[in-house]
């Protein structure tokens, strides 16, 4: 066994032993999530944007709006496309190149939460008197990866959508149906909560160190009514029925707290390491 592996082994045992006693390396309880800082409107070139810090994890979501074609089977609805780029700037574990499974899973799980909860009123994105619709491009860029991208991304995306202005005037300029700019219509506010299994314990909002040694991961996205909109089990490992029921509960409960943060006019903000972005 290499020296590197020995150190990893020791750390694994240490974290495991802590968690057996209901403790975590950063002092949190297993069901405690890290401080969340939400900074909307940070990118002027985007139609909507938000930076989220979730403990040491930092992530930017940006929204761009364009004119485009609807899907053939829903011609009266706008289109929403979600992409995540795991840029290697954010972590030594991310590599350059075309999107890999991990980035695709992240984008698709966030997308399902937004889409299945009907967060965006896509029917309001049809251009009247035209075959065109507005296309909402949601782009997710982790910039500092310390675990739990799923939840950070969902919060950032919902917040960015909430502050998105559809530049309809410019996009429909010169056409027969000149429109006014309008606020992107958001109907629901899904929030995801993710936990990983370490030993026999479900640990919420894991850090990178915790993810490194964790077994199964479960993400549960719930809506304002406490209903489930999306779930995703990931990573190698097994969950019990009880683990899952517990995560559903946590998602409903913690979702309420996070939704409050999102709605607050004054966003809470942990001290920012750098001033504006």
């Amino acid at each position: 066994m290499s020296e590197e592996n020995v150190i990893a082994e020791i750390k694994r045992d240490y974290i495991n032993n802590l968690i057996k006693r209901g403790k975590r390396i950063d002092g949190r309880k297993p069901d405690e999530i890290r401080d969340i800082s939400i900074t909307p409107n940070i990118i002027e070139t985007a139609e909507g944007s938000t930076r989220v810090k979730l403990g040491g994890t930092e992530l930017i979501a940006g929204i761009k709006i364009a004119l485009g074609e609807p899907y053939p089977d829903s011609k009266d609805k706008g289109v929403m496309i979600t992409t995540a780029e795991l840029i290697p700037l954010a972590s030594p574990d991310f590599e350059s190149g075309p999107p890999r499974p991990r980035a695709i899973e992240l984008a698709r799980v966030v997308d399902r939460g937004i889409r299945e909860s009907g967060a965006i009123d896509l029917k309001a994105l049809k251009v009247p008197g035209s075959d065109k619709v507005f296309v909402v491009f949601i782009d997710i860029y982790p910039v500092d990866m310390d675990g739990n991208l799923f939840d950070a991304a969902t919060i950032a995306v919902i917040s960015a959508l909430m502050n998105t202005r559809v530049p309809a005037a410019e996009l429909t300029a010169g056409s027969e149906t000149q429109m006014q700019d309008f606020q992107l219509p958001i109907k629901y506010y899904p929030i995801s909560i993710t936990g990983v299994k370490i030993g026999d314990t479900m640990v919420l909002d894991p850090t990178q160190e915790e993810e490194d040694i964790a077994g199964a991961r479960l993400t549960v996205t719930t809506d304002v009514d406490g209903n489930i909109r999306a779930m995703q089990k990931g990573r190698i490992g097994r969950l019990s029925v009880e683990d899952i029921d517990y995560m559903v509960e946590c998602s409903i409960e913690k979702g309420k707290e996070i939704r409050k943060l999102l709605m607050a006019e004054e966003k809470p903000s942990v001290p920012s390491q750098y001033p504006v972005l």
Partner: protein
Amino acid sequence: MNKEVKLLREDGLRLDGRRYDELRPIKIEAGVLNRADGSAYLEWGSNKVLAAIYGPRELHPRHMQNSMKAIVRCKYSMASFSVPDRKRPGPDRRSTEISKVIGEALESVIFTEQFPRTVVDVFIEVFQADAGTRVAGLTAASVALADAGVPMKALITACAAGKVEDTVVLDLGKLEDNAGQADLPMAIIPTTGEIVLMQMDGHLTPAEFRKARDMAVNACYQIYEMQKDALKRRYAAE
């Protein structure tokens, strides 16, 4: 979701005549391919799926090897003619995600520490697709792994439940999937009841979720018998 499609008939049965908790017909056959180290063919409703295992075998290039355990690679893909509109060959985002979650589910029961530096390749090819190809593929792949003699803690078994017209039903067919309100594909280890794959999208209350989950888990036990049966026939044939 199109509300105008009626998915439940006046007699309370589903469009294809099934009860709310009834599976579509399933056939499994193990060891159907010559070249693969293990294989299985599975029909599930109108799904037709082949799974093949290669390995444990040496992994190249060497810097991809893990000195502590085997790598499990899973590739789920759909033949171009498996769907109504021809699918362009090559992986898309959907199949990439499905490959990932199926591979992780399978690796959850493989004793990978027993053969470090190697790779176990799992290939799932969908030749005809109805709804539920991922649970069909995973169920087949699990049998194929056993057929290949890859050391596993247990077989795993997959099935989905969902919601149509505010009713929780088992194993959605294509029409139900397209017009339904929720889909919950799952995979369990029947010998322990543990969950190794779970995805959901749609709208379920916590009570509906528990109902759907229990329905899918119960169905897994039925399918598990078919998996074991396929393997017994396979061993008997040898």
